[in-house]
């Protein structure tokens, strides 16, 4: 009964397709964000607020992931942003094959930024690579300051964290230092931006970071792409 060493990631089949997605995005010069959050944190609002403030040279497209409905996709389409909808039919996360299947629904040649709105969930989306450049985790003040302690896997996977509905920090007695300590416990690299999609406060700082020269300090591949713009 020989023992065969394997040491292979359980989702390596998904990882393989994620790598193919990423190669396609690279070849197309598209920066890809994977937005993850609980339901109601404001992922769609972040997409709309971000798109509204992007420099003119940036041309966004959106993949909307939801269990069901086209509600979010219709809102985004109404703003004139190219969008395609994935309905997971009850599935709790997006995976790389779903992204691959959705791509023909977008004019990739016209885009240089793709925002993927994952299914609202702070657990499993973190396990499934899509081929994105940046994992954007959106938290929000009404959810409470304990989320990094309860969902450390998600916050550890973040490349950047947005705290939305920051105008409600006092209303919900959201303990920002406690939240930030929990985040830093598992993630010492992801910048944290406080913003309010409702008032617009803080959105510029996040968009400046996304579109700004700081990105050049990122991975070489990303830096090269930004230089080409």
């Amino acid at each position, binding site marked *: 009964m020989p023992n*065969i*060493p*394997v040491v292979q990631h359980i989702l390596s089949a998904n990882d393989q397709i994620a790598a193919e997605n990423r190669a396609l995005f690279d070849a197309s010069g598209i920066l890809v964000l994977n937005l993850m959050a609980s339901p109601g944190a404001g992922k769609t609002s972040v997409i709309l607020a971000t798109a509204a403030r992007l420099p003119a040279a940036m041309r966004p497209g959106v993949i909307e992931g939801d269990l069901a409905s086209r509600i979010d996709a219709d809102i985004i389409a109404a703003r004139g942003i190219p969008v395609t909808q994935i309905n997971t039919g009850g599935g709790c996360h997006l*995976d790389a094959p779903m992204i691959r299947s959705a791509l023909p629904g977008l004019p990739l040649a016209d885009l240089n930024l793709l925002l993927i709105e994952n299914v609202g969930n702070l657990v499993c989306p973190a396990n499934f690579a899509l081929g994105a450049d940046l994992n954007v985790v959106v938290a929000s003040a009404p959810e409470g300051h304990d989320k990094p*302690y309860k969902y*450390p*896997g998600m916050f550890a996977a973040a490349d950047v964290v947005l705290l939305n509905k920051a105008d409600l920090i006092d209303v919900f007695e959201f303990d920002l230092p406690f939240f930030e*300590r929990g985040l830093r*416990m598992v993630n*010492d690299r992801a910048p944290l931006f406080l913003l309010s999609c409702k008032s617009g406060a803080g959105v510029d700082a996040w968009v400046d970071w996304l579109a700004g020269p700081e990105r050049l300090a990122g991975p070489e591949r990303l830096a090269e792409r930004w230089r080409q713009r």
Partner: protein
Amino acid sequence: MHELPVTQGILQVAVETARQHNADHITDIHLVIGVLAGLVDDSIQFYFDILSQDTLAAGATLHFRREPAIAVCGQCGRQTEVTPPLLTACPACASPRLTVTGGRAFYVDSIDID
């Protein structure tokens, strides 16, 4: 419910490896899963019993090795094993300056074959 695709992944990795070694049967699958990976052993076992029917892994035993997550105190250096929800302060000196490492592993370590 994400244990379903995870279990499909386990089965896929194990069966492909067994085929490469011309195995007739997989008797055991050894998994390493971090405590922060958000996966439930019983749920994986439940799906595995269904999905493995009529495969090389039918009847195989799953072994779960839990990779711990360690909180290191930035004040006194004390190391504490943690699971979610994480500690909010060091149990030794009460400092909130903690750094958590490990616990996110997620792989098939080895298989036993006939």
